[in-house]
C-alpha cells in the first residue's frame, strides 16, 4: 500500500463525488419544482427535455447569461467572496459522507480487465475519519458566515436583515442540534478500529433489521434533529433569512447571475447534506435494514460488490425520500414568525433536548431498555393531564 495508490484512489473518489453533488443539485431542483407543482395541482416543468427533466440545465444556462450586478456601495471583495464561501463549505462536507460499506473483492469491468483490490475500498472520501460528526457540525456552522457576509457586503438593509437573522437562527438551533447528535453518539456502541465520532462507526452500530436504526431507539433526538435540520438549511418553515414577503430576497437580494446560482446550488447541496445527515444518524445510513444473515443467503456477503450496490441503493433511496420530505414540508407549513422561531429554539427544543440527553444517559448507563420511550409517553400523559386541569380551572374562573 504505497502513497501513490492512496492518492489515485482519493482523486478518483473526489472527482466522482463532486460531480455527483452537482448533478444531485440539479435533480433536487427538478424534484422541488415538480413536487411543488403537483402539491398545488399544477403540472410543473414539462417543456425542456422528456418530462421537463432538462429544465435545471436550462435554468443554469439562463443564470450564466445574466448580467452580474454589484451594488455601487457594496464591498466588492466580500460581495464576491460570500457565494464561494457558502458553496465551498457546502461541498466540502461531502468528504466524510459514506455511500456504502467497503469493497474487498476484485472488480471485474465487463469481463475486459480486472482491478485488483488489495485492501478494503470505502465508498466515500474519508468515511472513517475519527472526527466525522464534528467535521459536519463545524462545516455546516461555517456556512452561515457566507450568508451573513453576503448580507453585510451587499450594503442593503434587506440583505443585512437576512444575514443577521441567519446568524441568530443558527445560534438558537445549533445547541439543540448538537445535543441531539450527542444523544446518538452516547448510545452508539464502540466499533473495532474506529473512533466514536466516526460516521462509519455510527452506521455500523445500526446494523441488523431496520428497527435497530436509531430513530426507534432515540425518537426525541430524531424529531429534534429533523426540526433543527430544517433551520440549519434555511428551508421553510425556518427560511427567515430569505423571507420573500418581508425581505425581498433576504441575503441574496443584491445577487444576480451565477453568483446567485452559487447560493442556489449551495442551498440544494446543503439540503442533500442535511438529508444525508438525518439518514446517517437516525435511519441507518447505508444499512439496508435487512439482517446480514438474510443478505448472506442471497449472496450479498460483506465485501462483495453486490452488497455495496445494495447499500448504495438503500442510502440513495433514503436520501431521496428526505429530499422529498424537505420539499413536502416546504409546501405544507407556513413560515414561523421571528419571535416564534426564537421561542421554539430556546424555550422548547433546548430544554427537551437537555432532558432527553439525561434520560438517554440513564438508559445506556444502567441498561434500561426503552427508558426513553417510557419517559416520553409518561411525560406526554402527565402534560396532557396538567394542561386539561389548567384549562378547566381557567374555564371555572371565567364562569365565576
Amino acid at each position: 500500500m504505497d502513497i501513490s495508490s492512496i492518492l489515485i484512489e482519493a482523486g478518483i473518489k473526489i472527482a466522482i463525488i463532486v460531480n455527483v453533488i452537482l448533478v444531485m443539485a440539479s435533480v433536487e431542483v427538478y424534484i422541488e419544482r415538480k413536487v411543488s407543482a403537483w402539491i398545488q395541482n399544477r403540472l410543473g416543468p414539462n417543456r425542456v427535455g422528456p418530462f421537463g427533466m432538462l429544465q435545471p440545465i436550462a435554468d443554469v444556462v439562463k443564470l450564466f447569461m445574466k448580467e452580474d450586478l454589484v451594488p455601487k456601495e457594496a464591498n466588492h471583495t466580500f460581495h464576491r467572496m460570500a457565494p464561494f464561501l457558502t458553496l465551498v463549505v457546502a461541498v466540502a462536507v461531502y468528504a466524510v459522507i459514506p455511500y456504502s460499506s467497503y469493497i474487498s473483492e476484485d472488480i471485474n469491468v465487463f469481463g475486459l480487465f480486472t482491478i485488483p483490490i488489495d485492501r478494503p475500498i470505502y465508498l466515500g472520501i474519508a468515511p472513517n475519519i475519527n472526527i466525522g460528526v464534528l467535521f459536519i457540525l463545524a462545516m455546516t456552522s461555517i456556512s452561515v458566515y457566507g450568508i451573513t457576509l453576503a448580507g453585510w457586503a451587499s450594503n442593503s438593509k434587506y440583505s443585512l436583515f437576512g444575514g443577521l437573522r441567519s446568524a441568530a437562527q443558527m445560534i438558537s438551533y445549533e445547541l439543540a442540534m448538537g445535543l441531539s447528535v450527542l444523544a446518538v453518539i452516547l448510545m452508539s456502541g464502540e466499533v473495532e478500529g474506529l473512533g466514536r465520532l466516526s460516521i462509519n462507526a455510527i452506521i455500523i452500530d445500526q446494523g441488523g433489521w431496520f428497527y435497530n436504526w436509531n430513530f426507534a431507539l432515540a425518537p426525541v433526538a430524531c424529531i429534534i434533529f429533523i426540526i433543527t435540520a430544517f433551520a440549519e438549511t434555511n428551508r421553510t418553515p425556518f427560511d427567515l433569512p430569505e423571507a420573500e414577503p418581508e425581505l425581498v430576497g433576504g441575503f441574496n437580494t443584491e445577487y444576480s447571475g451565477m453568483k446567485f446560482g452559487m447560493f442556489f446550488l449551495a442551498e440544494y447541496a446543503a439540503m442533500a447534506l442535511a438529508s444525508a445527515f438525518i439518514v446517517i444518524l437516525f435511519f441507518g445510513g447505508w444499512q439496508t435494514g435487512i439482517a446480514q444473515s438474510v443478505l448472506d443467503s442471497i449472496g450479498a456477503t460483506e465485501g462483495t460488490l453486490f452488497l455495496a450496490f445494495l447499500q448504495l441503493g438503500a442510502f440513495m433511496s433514503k436520501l431521496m425520500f428526505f429530499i422529498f420530505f424537505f420539499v413536502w414540508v416546504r409546501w405544507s407549513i407556513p413560515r414561523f414568525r421571528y419571535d416564534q422561531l426564537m421561542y421554539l429554539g430556546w424555550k422548547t427544543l433546548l430544554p427537551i433536548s437537555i432532558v432527553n440527553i439525561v434520560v438517554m444517559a440513564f438508559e445506556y448507563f444502567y441498561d434500561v431498555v426503552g427508558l426513553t420511550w417510557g419517559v416520553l409517553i409518561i411525560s406526554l400523559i402527565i402534560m396532557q393531564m396538567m394542561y386539561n386541569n389548567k384549562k378547566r380551572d381557567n374555564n371555572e374562573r371565567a364562569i365565576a
Partner: protein
Amino acid sequence: MNNQKNTESERLSFWENIYLPEVVKGLGITLKQLFKPKFTRSYPEERWEPTGSYRGRPVLVEEKGQERCVACGLCSRVCPALAIEVQPGSTPREKERYPELFEINMLRCIYCGFCEEVCPEEAIVMSKDYDVVFTSQEEAILGKEELLVDIEKLRDRLEFLHEYR
C-alpha cells in the same frame, strides 16, 4: 364545555397545542393533493374553445363573398381607443356604400365591443380569436383582407347577439 374561551391557545386541545400532530395532519393533506388530477391546460397543444359570449378580436362579417359593412362610420365614432378607421366608397350594389378602407389598430383595441354594439348592419362582431400576436407595429394594423371572416365561422357569436341583445 362552554363557549366563553378567550384566546386561541385556550380553545386548542393538548395535542393541537404541542403542534407536531397537526403538522403531520397538514402533511397528509398536501400528500393527498399530490395525486389529484391537475388543472393545468397545456396551452399550445390543448386549446381553449370559447363560447359565443367571448369577446375576442373584432372582425367584419362576410356574407356571400361581400362585406355587410356600409361604412357608416359609427364604429369608428364610438371607439373609445380610436382604433378604427373607415373610408367609404360607392358601389353599384343594392347597398350603395361600402368601405374602401377599413383598418383596426390591434395595439389600440381594448376589446370593449362597443363597435359591435353600435353597428346597425351587424357587420362587425367580436370573434373567438384570443391569441393576437404581431412582430411589428405596422403588422398590428389589420386591413380588410385580415378582418373579413365568413359568416359561418361567426354563427355562435351572432346567435348569442340575437338572443341577448
